[in-house]
């Protein structure tokens, strides 16, 4: 982690799940190569039938210690306040999603994303060092909208605040 200890919290949404997967894989590769330092990245994809799948990076990427509780991962451990504000995703979409199957979704970010994503779309949440912003931007090229918030340190409280801010940015 750099001296200033600043982290970026990014939320990106995708019209097309496999392009989100492509970006996610690119992000992971950067992390594995040590090009960037991440505290976690989550990919939530939702197929045309509304089935949701959640992927996240594992500990092998050397997270710097974001404590979100219970030793569980970012996706299941962090309950996000209005992660993607209703104004960003919309009541209309929400109406469509009412009957969507929620298989394989656990509590936490995945569920929040399920509510927010229309069928056949995807979202990525990533936390990484601010100094890596340029490299990350180069990896996440397929998102249709994204929003970034900065936090000072990797605490759960800060992270939640960052997610809220990024979420609001996405809505604006």
């Amino acid at each position, binding site marked *: 982690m750099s001296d200033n200890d600043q982290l970026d919290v990014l939320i990106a949404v*995708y*019209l*097309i799940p496999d392009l989100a997967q492509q970006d996610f894989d690119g992000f992971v590769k950067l992390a594995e190569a040590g090009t960037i330092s991440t505290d976690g990245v989550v990919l939530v994809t939702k197929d045309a039938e509304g089935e949701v799948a959640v992927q996240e990076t594992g500990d092998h990427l050397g997270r710097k210690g974001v404590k979100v509780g219970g030793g569980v991962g970012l996706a299941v451990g962090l309950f996000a306040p209005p992660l993607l504000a209703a104004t960003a995703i919309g009541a*209309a*979409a929400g*109406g469509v999603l009412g009957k969507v199957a929620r298989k394989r979704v656990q509590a936490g970010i995945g569920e929040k994303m399920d509510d927010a994503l*229309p069928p*056949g779309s995807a979202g990525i949440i990533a936390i990484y060092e601010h100094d890596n912003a340029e490299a990350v931007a180069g990896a996440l090229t397929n998102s*249709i*909208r994204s929003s970034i918030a900065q936090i000072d340190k990797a605490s759960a409280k800060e992270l939640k605040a960052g997610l809220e801010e990024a979420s609001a940015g996405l809505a604006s």
Partner: protein
Amino acid sequence: MSDGTDRSTLPIRRPPFAGVTKRTLEGSEADWDQAAQVAPPEGAPNVLVVLIDDAGFGNPSTFGGPIETPNYTRMAEGGLRYNRFHVTAVCSPTRAAMLTGRNQHRVGFGLVAEFSGPFPGYNATIPRDCATLPRILQENGYMTAALGKWHLTPDNQQGSGGPFDRWPSGLGFDYFWGFLGGEAGQFDPLITENQKAIGVPESTEDDPYYFPDDLSDKTIDWLHRVRAEKPETPWFVYYATGCSHAPHHVPKEWAAKYEGKFDEGWDVMREQVFARQKELGVVPSDAELPPRNDGFPTWDSLSETERRLYARQMETYAGYSENADWNVGRVLDAVAEMGELENTLVIWIWGDNGASMEGTLTGTFNEMTTLNGIPLTPEQQMGLLFKHGGLEAWGGDLMAPHYAAAWAWASNTPFDWGKQVASHLGGTRNPLVVHYPNGVSDPGSVREHFTHVIDIAPTVLELAGIPAPTHVDGIEQEPLHGFTFADSLSASGAPERHTQQYFEAVGNRAMYKDGWWLAMRLPRIPWLLDPEALRHFGPGWNPDDDPVELYYLPDDFAQANDLADQHPEKVEELRKLFWEEAERYQVLPILGGLSSFYGIVPPIPKVSTFTYRGRIENIAAGMIPRVYNHSYTISADLVVPDGGAEGVIVAAFDHLGGFALYVQDGKLKHHYSMLGVLEYTQAAETPLPSGDVNVEMVFAADAPKPATGGEVTLLVNGEPVAVGRMEHTVPARFSGYAGMDIGCDNGLVVDRSYADKAPFRFTGEIKQVVFDIAPDMSDEDRQVLHEHAAQALAAHGANA
């Protein structure tokens, strides 16, 4: 085929009594001709005219396109393809020209039905000295029906109060079923039958409604009924699809047939279609494809997300179009089962104009954003697409989608440009197939005669043995402007009679004569119709100063080689001829249909209070109070039973643009959708009292200006119960097709929060709902807004 009946004057006069009358029946001699109905000439064929909407020369597979059209092809293989057939480049004008056999400006349709303007060529009113083809056939004994899209009734005449002389029944049709406007939601159309709006058909998840299917059902029903009752009387059916006009709505299984078919993009599609057109012989083998139009992005320049999105747009359009072909096929099958296909003249035109570029460069989730002049960046379009259900929802009822303009350009292959651009073949040349087993000598052939939509009426009349009347209802008739091509059905070498034709739409002009085509395109982006885009064409504009192109079509089928520099004398000759024709046929003033952009607006309406009592539903979009761009109030007197009430008090249109005042959970609410881009809700915190209750929604605009923001206050018995702000409001029109209802919300609802209770009828009593649209503003502001409203209507119409 003459039977001695004088058909030159309509209605046909009853013959003189040839019997004898005495004081009593004793000795009287009967003459049954006195009781006879007029009959068409012996052997007169049935006529089925099929008109597809907003489609290109390169769309159907019958003409080399990527869209599978097996029914169109079977008609072509049993009949003829005409590969030099022309339309007017805009919707209503083509329909008016086709149904009257006269040039569109001469019958008041220089532009579309929405805007009834102050010049004879643009008043959207077919004159009585130009009786329509269905009227002529009707008066000669045919049974006539129009089903589907109409688009020939002015916007402000589509209500229950008429007048009805511009409705289908007033223009020669015994029966009408369809929609009066320029477009309809294919899942939620507002249907009119004869002279009554009968509402939005019921639709459920298990049994979803789809207009194109119903259109064929209703057509077949009508044919079965009239044939059962009149086994020998010929019929004339005008079957006009809403497809493939936006919104591009189609069940997923139809779009899914094209999954992956457009992944290579519009540039490749254009090349492939052109090659197939040559193989089929609908384009000469030596034809050249015009140079690439730089107004459209290359496929290679797009991001992967854009390519996927745009490919889906075209998959949907293709499925939508193939469904239209399938549904026409069902009608043809029914006619065949009735044993009447042999003596039915099928005239099937694939497009009333070239494919539409009005989706802008990105396509749009809601076509009304474009028509309201709301600029949306590609990023905003994608965000809104995401908001309204994502890519999976494209083509479904949660959107009113229109594809990207470049698909239209490719759909018009081999020609350049498209709808509205009357200066070029992309806007004006569409496929025509004629099927008539009793008349075609060499089925499967291609005819290369220069033909035009005004030739349909004289051709039908000749094949029916019916003359064009000199007088109808005592009014001397303007001779038909078109030329029959009936003899070309049986003789490939029949003479080409249509040797000269002007074209004009939204200022784009062309003059054709003896193979030469002078193209005079208005130098503007076709899908932009706003004051700024049109400013250049106001006072001081000289159309003759604009650049021109010259083509010699016998050698240059697709307008690939501009000869203007080589033949300046031909340019001048055709330019002069255009002005002569323009004067002759009421084309002048050029841009007469957009006069409101140049300060020529209708008188300001004086009525500002509209009261609705009782059960009034399905009010057409053009008939609602003008609540745009200024303050207004909606007040309702209710009776709320003990225990409370719920439901809609008034709802206009749907979640993609509309407003609703309703009671939910016992509380008064107001929801406003700014075209699905922004949504606002204000809600009271306490329930309505019981008994007689007055509720009111007051919108106090910031200023009388287009798309103004403002404050909303909800009041119950005069006391404020909720306030809220709306930053932007709809400046021109909420919807192209949905309606307004008192006491319920028919069709797709305005606020999806009560979608599961739709139509969410009010459970109390509504005594009256009153709109007061008389805002407190200066005469100057009033005039500015009035001009804006007139411009918006004209712009909407041009795009419709």
